[in-house]
């Protein structure tokens, strides 16, 4: 194998003789059995022998990298080294003799303070001119960012005039139909068709109506304000809510009606949030409260530290459940898996879990067992949606790569 010989030669240069078979064995194992790309495998094998023979890795490798050009809006990390193209907007009076120049520079994305020090002997800059500042360091103080020039920095005058402004903002509002589930982005405008599930007591005189609306995909809180003079809605009836805005507060979404909104009563009934949904993703967490738990014999609530929220200290009944998080790279989905399905999934009955915990004197071992069996693997779940959870009716591990999908992705990408 060429790579193996290459590695052998390099080590010979460093005065170490390694049998080429040893190198080949390690390479083969990594590449064939463990699917490691060749250059990664090569690097790993080299490192292994460097360590084995106690050779400094700098004798094998050397490398260099450079700073990148960033815009001012991207200056956001203390200690970051960057190049900045910016116009000097203001020069301030020096407050200290160690400072050569201090002021404000800016580009299209914003402005930032800069400081140039006397000791570094850099050329002076002028207000209104644009420069390329190379190799400057970002400095954070009291939550504000500034850039510091240093002795490795350079300043180049550029023959152009930058337009200094603030970050452009502004969301064009396009209101299209959305489902309740899609109302999950702060500031999003949409029209939704939904049934009024509950009307709540007004907590404030400026509110006209507040409550819960829902469609097939779930439920969401809504607010209607007195000042906007909109149609009153009734529980159990379905409406078209036009031009409403999503509002996020503490991670929960709600919709706000406003003076541009309109409400239309519809003569139809929609089923709220009980349809079966499926979700496929990797299990990325099995949360606390999973495994072997105890429930209140009165109300079936899960106990915390042997006590029920409602009934206090009770003699709990054992149960097995999994609170899982599945993640498909777009959504993190909470799921609750009840006893019968949990038992099947981890191949452990409730009785076995109880005795496992008794042997270990720790019911945490059941949770540990679940974590090591489940996390990192891909599953498809099916069940009904409740609040942010899916109550799982069935779960299947995806244990084989979908080759048709791979082929399709390859085809689609090759075309482009």
């Amino acid at each position: 194998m060429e790579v193996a010989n290459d590695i052998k030669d390099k080590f010979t240069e460093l005065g170490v003789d390694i049998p080429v078979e040893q190198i080949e064995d390690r390479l083969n194992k990594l590449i064939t059995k463990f699917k490691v790309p060749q250059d990664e495998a090569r690097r790993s094998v080299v490192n292994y022998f460097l360590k084995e023979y106690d050779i400094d890795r700098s004798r094998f490798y050397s490398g260099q990298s450079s700073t990148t050009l960033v815009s001012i809006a991207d200056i956001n990390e203390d200690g970051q080294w960057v190049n900045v193209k910016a116009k000097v907007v203001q020069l301030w009076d020096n407050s200290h003799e160690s400072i050569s120049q201090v002021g404000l520079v800016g580009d299209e994305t914003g402005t930032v303070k800069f400081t140039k020090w006397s000791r570094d002997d850099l050329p002076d800059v002028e207000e209104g001119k644009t420069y390329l500042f190379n190799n400057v360091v970002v400095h954070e103080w009291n939550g504000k960012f500034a850039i510091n020039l240093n002795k490795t920095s350079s300043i180049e005058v550029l023959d152009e005039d930058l337009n200094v402004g603030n970050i452009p903002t502004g969301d064009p509002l396009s209101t299209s139909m959305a489902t309740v589930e899609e109302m999950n982005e702060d500031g999003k405008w949409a029209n939704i068709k939904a049934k009024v599930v509950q009307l709540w007591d007004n907590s404030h005189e400026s509110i006209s109506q507040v409550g819960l609306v829902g469609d097939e995909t779930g439920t969401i809180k809504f607010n209607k304000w007195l000042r906007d003079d909109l149609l009153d809605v009734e529980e159990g009836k379905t409406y078209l809510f036009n031009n409403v805005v999503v509002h996020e507060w503490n991670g929960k979404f709600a919709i706000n009606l406003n003076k541009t909104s309109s409400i239309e009563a519809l003569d139809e009934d929609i089923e709220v949030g009980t349809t079966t949904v499926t979700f496929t993703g990797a299990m990325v967490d099995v949360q606390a409260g999973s495994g072997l738990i105890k429930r209140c014999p009165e109300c079936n609530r899960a106990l915390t530290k042997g006590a029920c929220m409602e009934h206090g200290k009770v003699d709990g009944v054992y149960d097995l459940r999994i609170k899982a998080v599945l993640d498909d790279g777009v959504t993190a989905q909470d799921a609750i898996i009840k006893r019968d399905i949990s038992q099947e999934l981890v191949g452990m009955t409730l009785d076995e879990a109880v005795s496992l915990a008794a042997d270990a004197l720790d019911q945490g071992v059941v949770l540990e067992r679940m974590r090591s069996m489940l996390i990192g693997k891909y599953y498809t779940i099916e069940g009904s949606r409740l609040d942010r959870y899916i109550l799982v009716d069935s779960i299947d591990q995806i244990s084989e790569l979908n080759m048709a999908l791979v082929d399709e992705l390859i085809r689609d990408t090759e075309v482009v």
Partner: protein
Amino acid sequence: MAVYIREVAQRIFAQEFRESDLSFKDGDDVYSPHYLLTPTGAKVNRIFIVGTLIEKEDIGTDSEYWKGRVSDPTGSFFIYAGQYQPEAAQVLAECETPAFVAIVGKPSTYTTADGSVLTSVRPESIHIVDGETRDIWVADTAERTLDRISALDDEDSNVVKAKEHYGTDRAYYSSMALDALRSLKDEI
């Protein structure tokens, strides 16, 4: 009632992750989450990786501090786990290399004196998995990457920011994803 929304675990290949150097905070207070923005516009606060753990080393002085190298078809990730990631550190201490591992973790960046940015992953969990799961992850990650590439024309602020910062070359990342997909075919 305060409800917190769990951050999605992004799917990023090692090559793209390594080429990311733009990190920022969403908001001004101490509790605001940190993000790493990648060249194809993924805003990453959590990452999910399945790959081959090819090296591990305890680089701690007083207490154990494990460094690991996890390879995928495009390159490799560095992971670091110490006393604040006890479960992950324990898995690293006990497992053998090479091994297929699934990692859920947080991205972290370090800027060297010469200004280059090194990315690594601070694992929340590491679990040993099988080769099939690794292949599924490669397909999954290729798909997500290609999705992000085709969304590069969107007006989404992260996408705009990523393109501005990296001058993202679509063809370059498409062919990375394509090579990863093809590697799945070679194995059969």
